[in-house]
């Protein structure tokens, strides 16, 4: 499914405008401290940027300059891939890089359609070993 180019552009503009508004009315007031002195207060630059994002977003929503065609299914696949990597990172937190890295590499290679045992072994065992060797042995830095 290819979204209509102008609609996708307007949608991105509206998202920017909404983010700008959220910054101005919610995020900046709650996540920065109020200071009563000085020229550039903690909110000054973020507020200016929020206005730029809000006005620019509204501008794109009202008058989209160019055509874009984001691919819907590609977004879904990308989200799934991000979720897979995020899960891998959580697993690294629990068990360590050395154990999870081969599994994660294997999962990504299988996802991409790789079925050759030789290449699967190279990617799942050889590469994590080289990274471990470079980080822990050569650089003396512990992997997570």
């Amino acid at each position: 499914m290819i979204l209509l180019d102008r609609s996708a552009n307007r949608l991105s503009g509206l998202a920017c405008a909404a983010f700008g508004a959220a910054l101005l009315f919610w995020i900046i007031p709650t996540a920065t401290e109020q200071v009563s002195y000085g020229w550039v207060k903690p909110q000054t630059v973020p507020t200016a940027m929020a206005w730029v994002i809000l006005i620019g977003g509204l501008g794109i929503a009202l008058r989209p300059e160019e055509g874009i065609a984001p691919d819907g299914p590609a977004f879904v696949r990308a989200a799934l891939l991000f979720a897979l990597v995020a899960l891998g990172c959580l697993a690294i937190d629990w068990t360590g890089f050395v154990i999870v890295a081969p599994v994660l590499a294997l999962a990504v290679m299988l996802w991409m359609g790789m079925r050759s045992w030789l290449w699967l072994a190279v990617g799942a065992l050889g590469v994590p070993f080289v990274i471990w060797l470079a980080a822990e042995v050569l650089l003396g830095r512990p992997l997570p």
Partner: protein
Amino acid sequence: MVDLSVILAGFADAFTLTNLLFVFAGVALGQLVGAIPGIGPVMAMAIAIPFTFALSPLAAIAFLMGINKGGLVGGAVPAVLINTPGTPDAAATALDGHPLAKQGKPEKATKMALFASVTGDTVSDIVLITVSAPLAVLALRMGPVEVLALMIFAFTVIAGLIGNSVTKGVIAAALGLLCATVGLDPEHATPRFYFGWFELYDGLPLAAVAIGMLAFSEIIRRIIASRGIARPAIEIPRDQDRADRRVSFAEYWACRYVMARGAAIGTALGALPGIGSTAAAFMSYAAAKRADKDPDSFGKGNLKGIAAAESANSAVMGANLIPLLTLGIPGSIGAALIISALVIHGIQPGPLLFEQQGRLVYGLFGAMIMANVMNLIVGQLGLRLWTRVVRAPEAVVFSSAILLCIAGVALSTGGLFGVAIMLIFAALGYAMTSFGYSVVIFIIAFFLGDRFERSLSQALVITNGEPSALIDHPVAILLILVSLISLWRFGLSRRRAAAGDAS
């Protein structure tokens, strides 16, 4: 000005066996990743930065410089052999390189690309070495007001030239500046946007943001795009004549004016922030075709076409460092990564760099010269090898790149918090690119954000918040006026282009 003793000491620091080895490793890695379509030197540099922590600053920068320069040469290999540029810079090279390869002369085409690339790069490096120190002296005379105006000008030019929409460029720059405000604010030292995560007191980690937006998001995009598609094989015929495998001196010399013009175009465009090497390559190609006696031969395997494109795109690299070293403003994404590496190693780029770290700067220049020589040697020996190595399946390449990103960011940020930041910014980068917002502008604004806020604060103190006080700063007024005119002109030209496309 910098003392001659500092210059000599800098070059002496560079020309050591250790640095030579790091430059060699960087160039070899750069040529390899440049030859793999979709990876490229920018991604490789982003991933490599955390692994350079254990090195001395000069060795680290020399290694990264080697990757960047090697990537320019490597990018021409798939452009010539399979008509798929390894890097966007090499797109113009494919116009004549691939037809020449189809005529059974792929090695001649890749070698011409190598020689032209090294020639253009060397010319640009000579310009960098000779003009950057005097420019830095001029830049030192600028106060915070002028620096602020210069940064506004740089943002305007970058937002106007990169991407297809000025408004989206401005939004991307604003997002980058906004993300740079995370952490303690420079004037009052109060925490901002840390949401209970004390790790964010020092701001968002540079390496995590850069790797997430430049490398990881691109890896995800490539994995999604390549799903189920087999990689095209790269083949070099075995039974080529010797004359078809090499570029003779006569052939090289016949391209001297084309390469000189390409180097001049690349150097001039590279010194301006935001104009990438791709534009320089196409501009040089067009100029060479227009000036040639036989313009119809272009696009059919003319060596001059390859020489024009490669000399220009490589010349951009050295010139890109002129605004970086003299003003602290990165002109391209490669320069932005070099800046982040300098910052990570405790070095602040800008006009004071020549005064405070002159030896290191001239060491860097020495490393660049070594990288050019290495590019020539490694290219001569390795071009055949790269074509074999790049046959490795994408599945292995990209799964390895994912592991390298995770390990690299974890090493640089000291744990998995940085990896989480990397994933968030990778998702943001993926979304921004999909909707036409430039991540390059975002990253450059993010790198400059802290300095922008400091300059703004200092400028307001100096002028006491009075716009009329700007009369004492004519350079700043000029830069702001030029910024406004540029913004208007860029917007106008985009609208005309859009109207042209629509009709």
